[in-house]
């Protein structure tokens, strides 16, 4: 994208007022999406993101300047702006870059841009018609087939010059069902860090049917009762509970500034001994996987909590300075215009030894949250919330009628001590996670778990 020689001159300019670290991040990304509404191609989103960001550090200060002008003169002006904002004075340093390759652990076979719009639309139509045909109660179906082809370059004053190409593909189908005048929605949104070969493994029609099944089930459901009760949370996207309740509070973004419920808790027991939590960016072709992070650090498998004991945080280079800790390969940004910070990749609770049926049977009266929706957290207090997209009442150890409109609220540091049963059926679900460095793809996952008591919002 940008030659080593130009990068060297840009980094020299960026360091010219005394920075102790300088970084150039350049990006050229194609975002493409075909959208279907009511069986017809409604729109095609097709956007090229191209630009660069220069970051310089001096001690605990950081400056970032960005530009969409990626000519040498544009980059040099951007570096000059960053240097001037950092400090006054003059420093002469010579930077010599060496190319490094970190390998590609996420092989791609079918580059999405090589597939015609019409072929993408056909796959999506398959999925959406399966949803419409599922049940007469399905009144509307919308679908999106999106792909991202992201090329990044990172060069730093430490001599690193490296590039990566990140391709992702995802299909999302939403169904609206109406039963006795009550409208509810259902969705299914699988994705992976692969090309269009995703659909050799995932059947589009199954995606449509699952979205429709959920909508129809929920449209026929009554409201969830409110109160404090035991909850069994299903595998897969249920892992959003750990993502919200703890994951965000383990990011250096909050921890470095004392804004986390888990500050100064390394090597202490913070969770039930059945809880082992891992953030792993190296799982081949998984939705949240990376080869290198957006600071050029290779992806890692980080065991965050082992048998209830806090082992590490997720750390980026800049926040790591304040914490006196090295990067864990966790720096991520939506695109060059966002300041990168520590984020999650594929985050999941490790499988335990309990059996699914024993967990359900252990609950006299409670909620089975089969499919979770999104949520959010305040990392300072640890208060989180998330929506239950598909819930059932458990009565006498048996899964009974479906209920809708439920949400779960609580405090992260409490809830991870109440995860007291963990089954063995680990599964991951795909999501987009929003934080200060923008919206990025992350996997959440877990086996079926029991939370001994939590506040269920309903009516």
């Amino acid at each position, binding site marked *: 994208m940008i030659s080593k020689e130009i990068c060297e001159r840009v980094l020299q300019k960026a360091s010219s007022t005394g920075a102790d670290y300088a970084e150039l991040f350049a990006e050229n990304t194609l*975002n493409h999406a075909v959208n279907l*509404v*009511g069986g*017809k*191609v*409604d*729109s*095609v*989103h*097709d*956007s*090229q993101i*191209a*630009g660069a*960001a220069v970051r310089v550090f001096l001690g*605990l*200060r*950081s*400056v*970032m300047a*960005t530009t*969409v*002008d990626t000519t040498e003169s544009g980059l040099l002006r951007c570096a000059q702006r960053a240097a001037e*904002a950092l400090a006054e004075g003059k420093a002469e340093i010579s930077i010599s870059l060496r190319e490094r390759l970190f390998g590609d652990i996420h092989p791609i076979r079918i580059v999405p841009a090589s597939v015609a*719009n*019409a072929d993408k*639309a056909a796959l999506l139509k398959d999925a959406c018609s399966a949803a419409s045909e599922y049940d007469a109660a399905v*009144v*509307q179906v*919308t679908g999106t087939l999106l792909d991202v082809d992201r090329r990044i370059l990172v060069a730093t004053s430490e001599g690193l010059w490296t590039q990566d190409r990140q391709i992702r593909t995802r299909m999302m189908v939403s169904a609206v069902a109406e039963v006795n005048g009550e*409208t*509810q*929605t259902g969705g299914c949104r699988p994705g992976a860090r692969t090309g269009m070969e995703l659909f050799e493994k995932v059947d589009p029609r199954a995606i449509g049917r699952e979205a429709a099944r959920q909508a129809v089930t929920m449209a026929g459901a009554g*409201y*969830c009762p*409110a109160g404090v009760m035991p909850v069994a949370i299903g595998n897969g996207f249920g892992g959003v509970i750990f993502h919200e309740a703890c994951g965000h509070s383990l990011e250096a973004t909050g921890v470095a*500034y004392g*804004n986390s419920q888990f500050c100064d808790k390394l090597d202490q027991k913070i969770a039930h001994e059945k809880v082992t939590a891992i953030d792993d960016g190296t799982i081949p072709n998984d939705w949240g996987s990376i080869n290198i992070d957006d600071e050029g650090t290779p992806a890692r498998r980080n065991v965050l909590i082992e048998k209830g004991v806090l082992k590490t945080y997720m750390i980026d280079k800049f926040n790591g300075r304040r914490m006196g800790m090295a990067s864990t390969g966790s720096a991520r940004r939506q695109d060059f*215009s966002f300041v990168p910070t520590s984020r999650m990749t594929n985050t999941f609770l490790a499988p335990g030894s309990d059996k699914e049926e024993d967990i359900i049977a252990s609950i006299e009266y409670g909620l089975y949250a089969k499919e979770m*929706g*999104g*949520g*959010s957290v*305040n990392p*300072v*207090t640890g*208060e*989180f*919330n*998330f*929506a239950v997209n598909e819930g059932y009442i458990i009565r006498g150890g048996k899964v009974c009628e479906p209920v*809708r*409109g439920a*949400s779960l*609220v*609580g405090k992260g540091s409490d809830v991870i001590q109440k995860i007291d049963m963990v089954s063995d059926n680990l599964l991951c679900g795909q999501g987009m996670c929003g934080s200060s460095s923008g919206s990025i793809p992350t996997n959440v996952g877990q086996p079926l778990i029991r939370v001994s008591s939590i*506040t269920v*919002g*309903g*009516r």
Partner: protein
Amino acid sequence: MDFQTFRQFVADEAAKLHIEEYELYYQLEESTSVSVFRHEVNRFSDSGEGGVCLRCLINGKMGYASTQLLSEESARALVRRAADNASVLESSEPEFLVEAGQSYQTAAVSTSPIPAADVLRKTALAGQDALYAQSGVVDGSRTEAFAEHIHIAIHNSRGLDLRYENTVSGAFLAAVVSNGEEKANSFKSCLGALEQLDLAGTAKEAADTARATLGAGIAPTGAMPVVFSPKAMSQLLGTYAGVFSAENVQKGLSLLKDKEGETIAAPSVTLVDDPFYKDSAMPIPFDGEGSPTRCKKVIENGVLNTLLYNLSTAAAAGKATTGNASKSSYDSKVGIRPFTMYLEKGELTQEQLLEKAQNGVLIDSLGGLHAGANTISGDFSLQSSGFLIEKGKKAAPVRSFTVAGNFFSLLRGIAAVADDPQPPTSPSFTAFVSPSVLVEGLTIAGK
């Protein structure tokens, strides 16, 4: 390459491919921000970001493509991509480009340049001092001063040539407070010329709000009267504003189908959308397609007067556009959004609403709106924090409870509207403003 040169390359390529109808939408945002932590500048950012979106109208279908790369090669590729994307579209909605020669109102914008880095630095440091002057404020508190200059241009093959420029600035104060046992946080922003910001008042509000939640208990469970604060009610309006979009209605994604002219809310409810709202930081005389914008009553005394339309949805409904075409980003499809949408204030004070409620909860803030609110069915179950209402007065703080109900029932269940709207504090084209409201029939889940 500048936009004017790029525009010429696009015109040449379009002519070569016999594309006669097209529009170029250009947006550039230059912004600077300074963050302060522990009385020291820890972050400075200076960005220039934006791009061009091309829309080509070919055989009645509107194909889109966007880029941030302004070069001769990318101009050519842009036209070819947009044409290719148009060729697979199947929707039957009519598509239009805006005609030139319409008249536009004048918006009160600022054309002043972005303040110097030093002014931003001083503002952020002063904001930090203002925060630490409040009792209970501890480490972790952050302050940011920001300024942004936005430039939009719309140019089309029918001779339309519109430009918009505006500069906004302000500060963001995030207070973390502690009573020695627990921490709480809150943030508040203020907009205006940096030298004239009320940093002390903003810091006090942020710290007071955070401190008031310390020692919060858990709310009871059950159905009870709820008073939403101006902040909480504007959050709810913002979440559900999409139900008034004609696009969502026509696609079967809003329950307001065939409801224009019908009563959908309590008589005390009048909901207005005003692109020239007096306290808006970003008033704008044209919408995302270039149509003139205007003020309109969406709900008047409980009756749904009109949905929000752009050209395509208006034509499908046999109406005129309301000037609500949106571009959430330069590269997004033309959609529909309100500008400043506000609930008209009533005559009672918040204290009088509490008096009417007698026993219930005052919800000060809502969380997880993207997850806990279903914008199609209207159902919501949302994380909340606020205060108990006991014997008609604001009592102890409560947090980590949920409020559940349905937005459409809530509109009908609004028993009273207060007189205390807060000015918008976000530097964006869309903002939501509401006074406190009293609602009957919602369920609280706490202990």
